[in-house]
């Protein structure tokens, strides 16, 4: 039983290593030029050639990502709460939230970059727009998720709307908010990268996307791959980190197994 679970846990790693080995082997066996498809070893070498530069760019992208995620979380939760508290607010906000969701960021990023003078702020705005919807929509549905009987119970004891919000609806929404946050975390990274790509041609960005563009122009394909790998690792880490945060918070509160 224990062995089986160990095998289960080790299997993704082994599979990954196997795939890398096959990749490296194929690249060598067929003499694929490194400017077309570099092997894993060439990619690691490209990273080791300039680790500081790449990690700096990663940090720059992550800074945009986290600021955007924080703004999206605060804004999304606040608007969802406003919608739950007032029908007027709901009528006013809901259509705009949908507009925001369906607008392709690539299409409006150039505008935002022109309008928002500060490059960092422009990137944050773009990433926030991409990250906003999941945390907003999940919080909104969480605020309505408490059992209707519990709503009846609060009414039976003459609870004010404020009390119902703080003692019932907000706590009931927490797990949904955390789920939304996790999705938004990944999207914030995507948004930051897309905005960097658009801004990159404007020539003021220092994020990973810019490194990818730059390496592409110079046909440093291995370096391009190294930047890509960093990006996916960051995405995985953000997803895992937010998942962990959610589990810890819910376990501390006592309602998650």
């Amino acid at each position, binding site marked *: 039983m224990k062995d089986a679970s160990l095998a289960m846990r080790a299997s993704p790693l082994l599979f990954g290593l196997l795939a890398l080995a096959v990749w490296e082997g194929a690249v060598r066996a067929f003499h694929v030029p490194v400017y077309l498809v570099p092997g894993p070893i060439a990619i690691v070498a490209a990273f080791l050639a300039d680790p500081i530069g790449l990690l700096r760019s990663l940090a720059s992208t992550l800074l945009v990502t986290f600021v955007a995620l924080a703004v999206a979380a605060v804004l999304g939760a606040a608007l969802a709460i406003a919608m739950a508290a007032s029908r007027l607010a709901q009528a006013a906000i809901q259509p705009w939230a949908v507009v925001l969701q369906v607008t392709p960021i690539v299409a409006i990023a150039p505008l935002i970059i022109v309008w928002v003078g500060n490059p960092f702020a422009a990137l944050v705005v773009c990433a926030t727009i991409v990250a906003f919807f999941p945390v907003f929509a999940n919080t909104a549905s969480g605020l309505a998720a408490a*059992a*209707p*009987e*519990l709503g*009846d*119970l*609060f*009414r*039976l*004891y*003459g*609870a004010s709307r404020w*009390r119902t919000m703080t*003692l*019932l609806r907000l*706590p009931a929404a*927490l797990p949904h908010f955390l789920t939304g946050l996790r999705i938004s975390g990944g999207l914030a990274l995507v948004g930051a990268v897309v905005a960097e790509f658009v801004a990159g041609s404007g020539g003021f960005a220092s994020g990973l996307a810019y490194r990818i563009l730059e390496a592409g122009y110079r046909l440093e394909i291995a370096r391009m791959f190294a930047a890509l790998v960093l990006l996916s690792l960051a995405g995985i880490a953000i997803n895992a980190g937010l998942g962990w945060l959610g589990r810890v918070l819910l376990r501390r*509160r*006592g*309602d998650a*197994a």
Partner: protein
Amino acid sequence: MLSIERVGRRFPNGTEALRDVSLRLEPGDFVALLGPSGCGKSTLLRLIAGLDQPDAGRLVWQEGHAPTPGEVGFVFQDATLLPWATAEENVYLPLRLRGISRQQAAPRLREALARVGLEQFAAARPRQLSGGMRMRVSIARALVTRPRLLLMDEPFAALDEFTRHRLQSDLLALWQAIGCTVVFVTHSIYEAAFLARRIVLMSPRPGRIASERASPLPWGHSRLDPAYATLVADITAAMEQALGHGAPVADLAAADPASGDPARSRERSA
């Protein structure tokens, strides 16, 4: 304590849940509202609780006004506890909503939990408790304000037979000790016959009171009492008559609301 006079309720979607329902509740009564699914038992209970308003007839309270919060306790089919709160915090909720501090409430919380036999589980979360224990917490929560009227909507329907029997006996002991009025909704003839001093039979579409009888059973009767079996048989006969001779099964099927409130159908299928 309450006189329900010719009450009717039709929902905006056209469903007539109650028509011309009249019923008197006396202090210290234990009334079972018995009827098939969809006959308007929950609707009637919600009207009594003030969670819904009739659109015909009226409710006349003896004191001249509707009860204040805390004078009525409500127990739902599901325990409906706050999953993030401990048993004690759940029981504290009604007092908290009335602005009573945790410290002031502490003795009453202990008392309410002790009444349902859960003093050892004050710090447990709902998911750590069994279904029967969760229902006990729910009952303690309803009792903590010392209500004069306790409304229960199929509280034991989701429990297994053994737990149900146990909770039924405990509920009777509680009722005897507290002396509040109980209105107990059920679709189990056995449960109504075992618990109630008065059994009100409802028929569906639209919900009406089909018959009403006092329980002939002495206080403290057992389930093995032949009089209990006779009462069950009597009620069964009255039920079949109310639903129409020969076709009780078809009528029951027709009475099952496929449409209506989605929250309710979800609850039923859950």
